[in-house]
């Protein structure tokens, strides 16, 4: 029996016993089993959607974090490159072979300074 059939049957009962009576019963709105099921399914779908959006959002954060990690790694590499370049420029060999160093007048004492 469907929901509309059930209402029709109720109305038939009233029409038989008290045809002229005025119905005083308050009109309660009660969801039947089908509506309940539909509502539950919709709610479940909503929850599922919510779950999916959250998971997607979290994963998109993961992707962002991964991307930032990659960027951090690249920046660290650049920093290392600069540090290496700096160390190479300051190395004794570089200083020794620099134009400034080559133009210096040799002043190495042949013996120890007596002071």
């Amino acid at each position, binding site marked *: 029996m469907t929901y509309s059939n059930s209402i029709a049957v109720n109305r038939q009962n009233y029409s038989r016993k008290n045809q002229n009576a005025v119905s005083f019963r308050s009109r309660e709105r009660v969801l039947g089993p089908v509506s309940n099921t539909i509502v539950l399914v919709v709610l479940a779908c909503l929850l599922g959607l919510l779950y999916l959006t959250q*998971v997607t959002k979290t994963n998109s954060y*993961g992707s962002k974090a991964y991307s930032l990690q990659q960027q951090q790694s690249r920046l660290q*590499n650049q920093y*290392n*490159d600069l*540090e*290496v370049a700096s160390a190479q420029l300051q190395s004794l*060999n570089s200083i020794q072979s620099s134009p400034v160093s080559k133009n210096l007048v040799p002043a190495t004492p042949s*013996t*120890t300074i007596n002071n």
Partner: protein
Amino acid sequence: MNNSDKRYDFRAVRNINYIFWIMLLIMGLFVIRLFYVQVIKYDYYKKSALKGQLQQSRIPATRGLIEAHQGNQIIPFVLNQQLFTLYADPFLVKNSQSASEKLVSILGGTLSNIESKLKTPKTRYVVLAKKISQAQSDKILALKIPGIGTVGQDYRVYPQQELASQILGFVNNDGKGTYGIEQALNDELAGTPGYLKAITDINGVPLAASKNNIEIAPTDGKNIVLTLDIAIQKQVEDIIKNAAIQEKSPLVSAVVMDVNSGAVKAMANYPTYNPANYYDVTTPGVFNNAAISNAIEPGSVMKALTAAAALDQNVIQDNTTYNDPAHWIIDGFKITNIEEDGGAGVRSVEDVLNLSLNTGATWMLMQMGGGQVNQKARQAWYDYETNHFKLGSSTGIEQGYDSPGVVPRPNIPNQSGDQQDLTYANTSFGQGLTVTAVQMASALSSIVNGGKYYRPYLSDGIIDAQGNIKYNKPKIIDTNVVTSKTSKSMVSLLQQVVTKHFQAGFSYLNFPSNYIVGGKTGTAQVANPKGGYMDHEYNGTYLGFVGGDKPQYAIAIFVTTPTVNGYAGSYGAQPIFGSIAHMLINESFVSPKGS
């Protein structure tokens, strides 16, 4: 309702029932199949699914840096740098000429070289260039040439090039420290790799919302500061390189050690190599830090130790004299001196060191035995060699191979004294035993610093993530190597040797009066692998110190078979000592008296 309607209803109900049961059967089959797949075969399908999605990888730890002193500064000595290898799959490269032109415009080099590699037949992988920079890699990848790719790899970078290469060692292709400090402190430098286990998307990006993800961060290696002073190291390397070339020596080693801590300030060998190109080295022997791994017979520098042992046992005094017969017969063999030392006569302890008398060193050994070389003398001298001066055992310095050297035992089984006295007489003047330069520098340090034997060390401390240095404390192994009286006597005696040598014509041994410089030469016969000694080959050695109010640095020099006009010790090793001592004084590495 008539009969036909009833039949119709009956058929409809029956059909509905059939459909119901068929649907139920199908549903049942689905349920059974799902139960089989989801419950019974759960593990199998889970594994299959994860195989495609789950990425498991090792996160490499960053290897610790190696730094060193330059005056008051700490500067990087060994760094890390990620460089890239450019590779190609020739099968996928359709237009090799166009690709080559694009690559050459970024990398430089010759077009034909790259083009010929891109045309290599029957291979899917060819390396086009190694160690290209990240910027170059980015530019190449931006070209999106099919079949061309780059892969990153961490490399050790040596800004000071070959400086101290044998102390540093290198990191091989497997990421393992090989030779030197890289090998000795590999565990500290390497750190602990991390681990990543994650469900990933199609691009390999880990999905954050997976409960199966595991990420264990790597523990990076520790940054280590060496005791070396780069300025001293560089100059010592230059000095020994020039000497090796001038003296045509195949191997020269030098050690400069702080006598009051055991900290090695410079340690150098020539020939050397550039650790960045270790794979180009054709003679693997050059990887060895000879100052630590090359144990040789030291020759007469040993007399300084013999004198210290005899003084310390109170069997001689620093002013004792004796009648030197110019030779001794020990076990039927004659022990003599060089011709220039003259014949028999009254000799002092100072003469023994200054003239480098073999008979004098033997006489000192005799005094340890009550007047002759015997078991008592052997035992006493062996005790000083091994227990006091720590010869015959590894020093424990942080290097890949630390040779213990060889000190003959005082009682050799089945020899019952036969030639043992001769062997021991030989050890008193530095033959018949082998030592390394670092062992001798450590032993001399303990003699001239008042009697404390410090473990020689190269690792000065560890730098934390904030850049703070936690220094290692010098480790005292023994506090009673010699008494302070013996120590003072030895400082004075060795100073006199330098003074006498200066007076004898070695003009470069002229040092200012506000510094103290002492030392002893050694010329050692070279052992013949076939037995006995080589006829005309000698190693030159020198063991000395330099300081102000008290000795500050011990210096050990080993020169292998130099070609010089004179004794290898005086004309091969001594000039190197002189140059290093002058350098230390002139450049204010040594504090003068009263400072």
